[in-house]
Structures are given as structure tokens and as C-alpha cells.
């Protein structure tokens, strides 16, 4: 299978500090790839670069075997879903129900019973049945994280980039996330996950890369 991303000699500087020094790696669409490392090692930066949120880097990145720079971000957003590290930055509306509804209708069509039923099923799965109409800022960090992750089920057709998805999640939340990742893998779509707890994903992960001292090393998986 051809890689979704081919990262060649990627270097990135921030405030004159080197974050990545000519790193090379490949990410496949059907695999769950983990990026681990200490705080500030560049995991989030790597995710942002692959979602076209940080355009200034050196080296080449191929996306679907074409130059990544040549793609508009609108194309990237249609192919991938990105969950940012800061939970609140992923939320758009006042309530979990409204937030999920926007994923469905995108203000292009009217909300209807079928969409509502789908949302109800998702809320049940994520244990948010009793809070789906509460203001988001009144929910706990863990509940907010669940709302954000619930959006994944409305974007099953996309490749997921998840930046620290375990932050704020309890054990039950982690299990829900693992189950949807496993389900996603069965349908042939994987994810790129930046995490400090790679062991938590041992059941679903195919490859684990570690970023340390501006270099990347593959620690688990076939090369």
C-alpha cells in the first residue's frame, strides 16, 4: 500500500530553536500511527504541519504521493479530521447537541429527525445522554473531551489526526476511544495520534515513533 504521508528531511524551527532536524517517516492510511515524546518535543507541531496549520517548514512532504504544499487546506480538511490538544479549541457551539449538529448540517441543510437520532446514538455511546443540552462551559474537562471525540463518529470517512486525545479522559472514556479506533481500523482507515501514553493504545497501534532531541525514531512496528 502507498503511504498517505511521506515525510522527507523535515526540519522545523521555532524561535531559533530546532524542533525537527531532517526527520523521515511514512504514515499509512490504514494504520494507527503513534507519535510519542516528552512535553515540548514537537508532537503537536508535527500534527499541525500535517494538517497544513503550519506552512513554514523545510524538507518535503508528500500527501497521496503529491507535493503537500500544492494542496489547499480545504482539500486537507475534506480528507482528514484534526482534534487539537486544547479541548475547548475544538468546540464551536453552546451545547454538545448544537456542536455535533454542525458537523452534520454545516448550515447547508435543515436539522431533521434522522440527524437527531444519529446524534442521540452517539451521545449514548459516549455517555453524554444526560448533558447533551447543557452549556459546554458547564461541563467538566472530561465531558468536553468526550463531546470533541464524539465528532469522530460523524467523520468516519476521514483519516484522523488526534493530538493528545487522552487528556482529561477517564478509563471509560479511554475504552470508548479505543473501541472506535478499532472499529475505524476494521473499515480500513487509521489515525495519527500524538500522545505521551503510547501504552494506552497498545491494542490498536501499528507503529510507534518517538520524537527526542529533534529526531524521530521508530520504536514499534514494521519499518
Amino acid at each position, binding site marked *: 500500500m502507498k503511504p498517505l504521508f511521506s515525510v522527507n528531511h523535515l526540519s522545523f524551527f521555532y524561535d531559533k530553536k530546532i524542533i525537527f532536524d531532517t526527520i523521515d517517516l511514512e504514515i499509512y492510511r490504514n494504520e494507527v500511527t503513534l507519535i510519542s515524546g516528552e512535553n515540548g518535543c514537537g508532537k503537536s507541531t508535527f500534527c499541525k504541519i500535517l494538517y497544513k496549520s503550519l506552512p513554514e517548514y523545510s524538507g518535503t512532504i508528500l500527501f497521496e504521493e503529491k507535493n503537500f504544499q500544492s494542496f489547499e487546506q480545504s482539500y486537507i480538511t475534506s480528507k482528514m479530521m484534526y482534534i487539537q490538544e486544547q479541548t475547548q479549541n475544538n468546540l*464551536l457551539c*453552546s451545547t454538545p447537541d448544537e456542536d455535533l449538529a*454542525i458537523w452534520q448540517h454545516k448550515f447547508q441543510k435543515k436539522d431533521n429527525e434522522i440527524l437527531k437520532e444519529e446524534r442521540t446514538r452517539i451521545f449514548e455511546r459516549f455517555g453524554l445522554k444526560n448533558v447533551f443540552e447543557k452549556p459546554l462551559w458547564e461541563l467538566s474537562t472530561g465531558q468536553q473531551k468526550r463531546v470533541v471525540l464524539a465528532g469522530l463518529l460523524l467523520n468516519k470517512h476521514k483519516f484522523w489526526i488526534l493530538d493528545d486525545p487522552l487528556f482529561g479522559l477517564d478509563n471509560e472514556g479511554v475504552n470508548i476511544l479505543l473501541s472506535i479506533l478499532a472499529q475505524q481500523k476494521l473499515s480500513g482507515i487509521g489515525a495519527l495520534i500524538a500522545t505521551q501514553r503510547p501504552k494506552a493504545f497498545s491494542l490498536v497501534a501499528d507503529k510507534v515513533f518517538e520524537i527526542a532531541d529533534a529526531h524521530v525514531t521508530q520504536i514499534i512496528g514494521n519499518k
Partner: protein
Amino acid sequence: MNTRTYLIISIIISTLSLMMHRIVHLSVLFALCIVLVFILNPTKKRFALLWKRLRFLLILIVFLFIMQMLFRHDGVVLFHWKFITLYSEGMRIAFIVSIRLLILLLIVSLLFDIPYYNFILALRGWKFPYELCLMIASTFYFVRMFEEQLRITKQQLRFREINFGKIPLFRKFQAFSAIIFPVLAHAMHTVRYRAIALDIKGFRLSPYRTYYISQKLKWFDYVIQILAFLVFVFILYIIIK
């Protein structure tokens, strides 16, 4: 440069912009503002930010310019075509209002780039009560937070493949209210947490307060402040005369 010097320059320029009623004078003042923007910490990022802020408000300025130009019917007729008549006084007022607004916007934009804590230190340097300093600084902080929240919302819309311009007109209001209300609510919620944090830290429990950072005026701050004041008095004298 000390924040107090920034504030003095800002107060002088904005006061002069309100007192001047000649296009030439206002244009000179506007040019001075531009020079200030270039002198004070000029970075590519700063100019990009300034342009981003102004671009949004320029529409408002252009709208006001057109309104003044079309609906002020004083002075001599400069141009007439069908139902459009432009008068000399209308044109003059339109220019004055637009330049004045641009000056004020530039000054406000300069102030917004100063870290909010510097306002507290600057105002405390003038012996203002701490509560007042905090309130003024918090106002700047709130506006910047609101700006940041708006940026996050725009980014999130992009991530969800929503182009606001392409939303059907009859759904635009629904979209706008669904998006703007949480922006305000989130910003207010953060302010609430700031208030709680102040309580936890025992805000105003002790009448005396110490500061970890101190902002002392340097020799060039004194020179600029005195020069600015002298220029202000001189221009004021000319205007009154």
C-alpha cells in the same frame, strides 16, 4: 519604551485628532501615527496583525465616508450626475471623519499590542488606585481574549469545511447567532475564572501590594514625554490662535 510614554503619546495624538478640523493637519497626524507604528517594535507579524484588524474596520470607514459625502448638502456643488450631488462641505467632513477614525484605530491598535500587565504597572506608576488599574487593564485583556476566541472559531469553521460566505442567506442569521453567542460566552466564562483566581489569591485583602516587575522611566522616556507635551501645547496654541 515605557508604557507610560506609549500612553502619553496615545492620549496626545487622540486628543489632537479630535481638536483638529483641517484635512492637512489630520493627514500630518495620521502620517505621524504610521511613523509610530513603524518605530515601535516593527515586526512582520505585527504589521500583518494590524492589517487584519484594520481591514475589517476599513469597510466601516468607507461606509461612513460615502454617507457623509452623499448626504451632507453644504457648500458649493463639486459634482452632479442624475440624483448624485457632491458638495464641498460634505467632501471635507467625509475626509475629516475618515482620517480621524483611522488615527483612533491605529492608536487603539498600538495599545492592544501592549501586554495587559504593563498597563497595571504604568497606571500604578501614576499612583492610580490599584482597582482602577486592574479594571482598565482587564478591559484590554478582555478585548484581546475576545479576539483570540474569534480566531479559534474561524479556524474551527475552516476545519469543519464551513465557508461562512457560502451559507445560504436565510441560514446566515442562524449560523451567526450559533457561532457568536458561544464566542462571547466563552470569553465571559474565562473572565469569571479570572475573578475566582483573584479571590483565591486574596485580592485586596492587604492594603499594600508589592510588584515582582517594576517599570522605571529611562532618560529617553523623559525626553520623549517632555517633547510630546511641548509639541501638544504648541499645536494647541496654534489651533486656539
